[in-house]
């Protein structure tokens, strides 16, 4: 499976990044420009989730908490202390790293669905606290970040700077993933994912590994959270800390291919595009219909390619070529 991290994947990823940068340069279509940025953000977030859920096999259903904590940290530091969101983003990342590391440590004996439940419960608690702690977060009214363009303020008028930053973000997460797939850390994670007892028996400290993988994954998720808050300019617990968000990270990875660097990126592109298209086409009149179609398509994709796009597409190509050759 590690051989799959080959040059073809880098070419696909590189072309996607290049195309994304070209869009704000060549098109005046604001919807398209906005969609590009959001798709890339999702790609980065899904890739971050993939480090815990894919490479380490620790299926988290609470990554929305890490996303939201990152977003709230940079936003609150900006609103109360005027701290640059760039620094706020790093503070959020550090806070989330500690929090997630602690949870991973505490849940170290829990495996499979039990671990997932702990993360789910944690995210639910964070969401409730954020919604109730009105003095700090203004609860469900949400927080607005004043629009003051400037590099130091992490706020821009045109879409190009946003695009460049988010491409940088996805590149960072992609690079980390490629490194993991080839490194000692990644091989040991794979061992732990496949069989935790066997991994311990051959000298792998699975507790340390789990804490490391989850903290890294959560840190990168938090960076995306801060970017989201800055880009959208508004933050509320009903979205930024929601269960839907956690599910979406996981879904994109499962569709794209768990434990591969390119998988979550393809999954994010596919799912976000599909969702946006369906919503634009059917979202108005027959409300809710687009969700039915969306759901049906997701089931279909998972049915046809249970191993994800990254490994599934090459298999399909091979199958198509064979009859022609014969």
């Amino acid at each position: 499976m590690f051989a799959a991290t080959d040059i073809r994947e880098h070419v696909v990823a590189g072309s996607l990044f290049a195309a994304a940068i070209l869009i704000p340069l060549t098109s005046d279509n604001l919807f398209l420009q906005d969609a590009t940025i959001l798709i890339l953000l999702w790609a980065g977030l899904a890739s971050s989730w993939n480090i815990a859920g894919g490479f380490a096999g620790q299926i988290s259903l609470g990554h929305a908490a890490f996303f939201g904590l990152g977003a709230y940290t940079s936003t609150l530091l900006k609103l109360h202390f005027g701290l640059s969101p760039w620094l706020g983003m790093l503070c959020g990342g550090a806070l989330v790293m500690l929090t997630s590391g602690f949870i991973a440590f505490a849940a170290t004996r829990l495996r499979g669905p039990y671990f997932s439940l702990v993360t789910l419960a944690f995210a639910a608690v964070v969401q409730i606290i954020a919604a109730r702690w009105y003095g700090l977060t203004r609860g469900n009214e949400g927080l607005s970040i004043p629009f003051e363009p400037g590099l130091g303020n992490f706020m821009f008028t045109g879409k190009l700077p946003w695009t460049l930053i988010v491409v940088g973000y996805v590149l960072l997460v992609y690079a980390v993933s490629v490194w993991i797939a080839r490194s000692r850390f990644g091989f040991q994670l794979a061992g732990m994912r496949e069989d935790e007892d066997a991994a311990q028996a051959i000298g792998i400290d699975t507790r340390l590994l789990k804490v490391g993988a989850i903290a890294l994954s959560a840190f990168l998720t938090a960076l995306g959270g801060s970017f989201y808050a800055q880009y959208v300019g508004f933050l509320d617990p009903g979205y930024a800390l929601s269960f839907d968000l956690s599910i979406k990270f996981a879904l994109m990875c499962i569709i794209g291919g768990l434990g591969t660097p390119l998988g979550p990126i393809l999954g994010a592109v596919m799912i976000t595009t599909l969702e946006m298209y369906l919503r634009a086409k059917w979202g108005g009149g027959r409300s809710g219909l687009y969700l039915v179609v969306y759901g049906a398509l997701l089931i279909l994709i998972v049915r046809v390619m249970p191993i994800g796009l990254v490994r599934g597409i090459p298999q399909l190509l091979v199958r198509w070529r064979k009859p022609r050759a014969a």
Partner: protein
Amino acid sequence: MLLEVERVSKRFGGLTAVSEVSFAVAEGQVVGLIGPNGAGKTTLFNVIAGVLRPSSGSIRFAGREISGLRPYRICRAGLCRTFQIVKPFRNLTVLENVVVGAFTRVRERRAAYADALKIVEATGLARWADSLAQALPIGLRKRVEVARALATRPRMILLDEVMNGLNPTELREMMDLIRRLNSSGLTVLLIEHVMAAVMDLCQRIVVVHHGEKIADGSPEAVTRDPRVVEAYLGEDYLMR
């Protein structure tokens, strides 16, 4: 003595699975651990390998107390085990399985692959190096289990029924492998029900029954011990 097990007991609530068992293994020996099903052999392995904490007693490896250490530390100390119910990394190839083991001793990817390739060759798995572990028949999976353990460069290996369920060819290959490993200096403690293999390979045999050690000695002496015959081997074995 490389491994010294001293009056080790393991109780689960009211059940005593291992009771006051003592034995030692000298460096370079092949020692067999036999006994009827449920005698406590695998529990004893789990206690030695750190999966279970002994209720009492002490275990020393290379002069150092290892009871209570976590499994990964015991492996790093040079004592590695295989599982009776094999646990291959199913979605990795055979070579990758061994590479994960090799990474316990080396940090560099190239060095880990080099080590793993050597071990895959030595264990006769080269033909299947690029097959997914889940695609292999049980005989080969058992060999992957051994290869992966060897990649951690142990001084001593605990083999839990690696010869059960093998066909005659596979059995011969596994016995050859164990003999070769031993002659290159590896100490072996093995649980086994395939008596012909145990008698052939082991210089010494420890017999447990109902959690207690009932015999300890050369294969010849042990097979003539009436208690062993009664508890495990059966009258037929003595007749032959």
